[in-house]
């Protein structure tokens, strides 16, 4: 993975000094809270319901064991012994004191981490496929390009006071695990007719109050021009994006107002005009960055198979191990290796939370068995991308002992949920307790949730949609009705290659009705699905009607 040189180190250190000064000016009263707010936000510091919250950047979701250990230490020293992994592949600490924040930033800098641009109206942490560098179907590892974007976007002199926040996601696989169609800019690596690698550029996707699936801005951008093209898009947005209404300030509103063709004309004109040599990295620099992401050397048994290790497991644990292998691990491009997903969704737990002990357990396993690499997924789990198949039994047992082997990746209890009203100042309803109850209910269904297959449930505690409910196969949005929590259900959403915004199926339900409603939806699905058909596909084939009927007949009953 990428390592800082003295330039990267200097930027992070100078940013901490600057922030320390800003905190001092706030405490002395020289800065008003209104002035301090955007400054602290650009360093990841929010003021939440009960306390400050610090969001630490995990650039494109990649962590080393040493970094994860440092996060565990911060959780113990400055917080309540846990952290919360987010849909932007970052980690949040919910209880730091303002005076401690510069010291936390020092601790982060010691392991080449920071909290820069994890909030504010600037370019946020770039996200990517958690299987990057390990997936069999990728064109090339997208992370060198993510790192190039990280550097280009960090303290950008022109784009630090945008109309609104700006999120970029990158994938290099045909199977989109980075939700590129619901980002301000989505980049999908593709090849042109001559076999050269470049990017399909997608723009104007997003969730929030006004969800959109992004449009294709350019079918093929030569990869060496990535940064100058991004610069052109950002300049058009910075100048033309609305600033009169924060709810209409994202680029998706601009793209939709102008139409994709008119927007494309503006971007292409701008790109044609700007000095690409002043922005695009020379090949020496892209090669320098790429060298940090060379595939880890594998000296293990290339012939080992998961069937083999499963067959060798002791009989009393074979079924559980096999189930975990099937659900939580994925094929690796190198024979003899496997991608291991680490579920942060124990049945009844808070989605995305990890204790310091769990972080250390994963850090240790990645160090011992996994080329020292950990990924944070946008679905709020962790991932160890490079595990030798022969080591899977040992890894599984250790994860199980740490409460991290719940076999539910991509199943119904693998729920994305925002922090909701338990933490967030914007929320109108709680998310975490509902996620806990739904997970418990679906896991208890006859035959287990495994019989339901892939099913994405996503919960947001308000219209800002941090829980991505719009793109949940079952989306749940918390709303406030005269001081009571109600939940609006949407169906048929997807954040993957078949991206779609879910459809609202009817009036919001009280908390007590949501669990039965989920059961009713799943009953319809199980009764009417074709063999092997996923919930999403069944919904698309059957349409909303049968689900609606079950939902509201049930609610009336």
């Amino acid at each position, binding site marked *: 993975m990428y390592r800082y040189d003295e330039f990267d180190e200097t930027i992070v250190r100078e940013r901490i000094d600057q922030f320390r000064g800003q905190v001092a000016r706030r405490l002395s009263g020289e800065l008003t809270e209104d002035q301090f707010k955007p400054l602290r936000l650009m360093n990841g510091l929010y003021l939440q319901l009960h306390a400050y919250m610090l969001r630490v950047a995990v650039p494109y979701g990649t962590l080393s064991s040493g970094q994860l250990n440092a996060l565990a230490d911060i959780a113990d020293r400055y917080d309540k012994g846990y952290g919360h992994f987010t849909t932007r592949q970052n980690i949040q600490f919910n209880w730091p004191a303002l005076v401690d924040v510069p010291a936390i930033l020092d601790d982060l800098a010691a392991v080449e981490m920071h909290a820069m641009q994890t909030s504010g109206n600037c370019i946020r942490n770039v996200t990517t496929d958690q299987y990057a560098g390990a997936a069999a179907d990728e064109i090339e590892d997208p992370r060198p390009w993510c790192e190039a974007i990280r550097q280009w976007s960090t303290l950008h002199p022109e784009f630090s006071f945008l109309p609104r926040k700006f999120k970029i996601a990158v994938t290099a696989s045909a199977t989109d695990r980075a939700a590129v169609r619901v980002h301000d800019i989505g980049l999908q690596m593709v090849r042109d007719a001559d076999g050269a690698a470049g990017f399909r550029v997608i723009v104007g996707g997003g969730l929030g109050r006004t969800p959109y699936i992004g449009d294709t801005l350019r079918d093929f951008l030569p990869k060496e021009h990535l940064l100058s093209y991004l610069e052109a898009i950002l300049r058009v947005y910075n100048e033309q994006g609305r600033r009169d209404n924060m709810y209409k300030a994202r680029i998706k509103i601009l793209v939709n107002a102008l139409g994709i063709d008119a927007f494309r004309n503006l971007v292409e004109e701008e790109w044609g005009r700007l000095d690409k040599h002043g*922005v695009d990295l020379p090949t020496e620099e892209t090669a320098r960055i790429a060298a940090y992401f060379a595939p880890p050397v594998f000296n293990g048994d290339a012939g080992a198979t998961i069937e083999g290790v499963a067959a060798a497991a002791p009989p009393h644990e074979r079924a559980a191990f096999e189930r975990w292998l099937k659900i939580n691990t994925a094929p690796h491009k190198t024979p003899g290796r496997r991608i291991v997903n680490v579920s942060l969704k124990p049945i009844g737990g808070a989605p995305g939370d990890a204790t310091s002990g769990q972080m250390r357990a994963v850090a240790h396993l990645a160090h011992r068995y996994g080329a020292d690499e950990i990924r944070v997924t946008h679905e709020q789990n962790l991932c160890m991308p490079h595990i030798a198949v022969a080591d899977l039994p040992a890894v599984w047992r250790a994860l199980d002992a740490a409460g991290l082997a719940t076999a539910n990746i991509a199943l119904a209890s693998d729920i994305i949920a925002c922090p909701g009203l338990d933490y967030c100042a914007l929320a109108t309803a709680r998310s975490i307790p509902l996620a806990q109850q739904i997970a418990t209910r679906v896991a208890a269904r006859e035959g287990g949730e495994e019989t339901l297959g892939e099913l994405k449930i996503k919960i947001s505690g308000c219209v800002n949609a941090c829980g991505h409910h719009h793109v949940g196969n079952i989306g749940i949005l918390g709303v406030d009705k005269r001081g009571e929590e109600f939940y609006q259900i949407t169906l048929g959403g997807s954040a993957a290659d078949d991206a779609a915004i879910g459809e609202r199926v009817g009036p919001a339900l009280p908390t007590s009705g949501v669990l039965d409603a989920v059961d009713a939806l799943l009953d319809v699905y199980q009764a009417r699905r074709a063999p092997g058909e996923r919930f999403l596909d069944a919904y698309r084939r059957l349409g909303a009607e049968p689900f609606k009927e079950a939902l509201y007949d049930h609610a009336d009953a």
Partner: protein
Amino acid sequence: MITLTLNDGAVRAGADAPAETTFADWAAGGYGTPAHGAALVLANDLDLSSVDPRANFSLFGEIIVHVPTFKDGRAYSQVRRLREQYGFDGVVRVRGDVLRDQVQFMARVGVTAVDVADDAVGGVKESARDFSVFYQASVRQYGADRAGPIWRRRAARALAA
């Protein structure tokens, strides 16, 4: 209010500021030669992506951009266009709601002077040096970034090694 020149720290009293012409007035007059020494004032929402070909900014020695609120980042792109697209080589002065933490960003897109309260000069000068290295090329080398962006310095170092 005084005007602080960013590269050398010189200050100019408000009373010594030049007379001003708005872009709208200049356009109404057919983009003619301004009164000697006048500064051109650009509205914050003026679209500089394309202007009338008769608009020769170099007729002015000084251009003033306005920042209505520090959260509004349009002026950064305006200044960048003045420098890169129109080749304007004179003074670019910013006024309005500017935080000291923004001044180095401004210098890096080509701002050369900023209007500040008399007692704010020290803090602004300090913040204008917050960072010593930059990932992006700065628009002009007005003392803000003589060494060039980090990637260019890395390449130069690799070449020397």
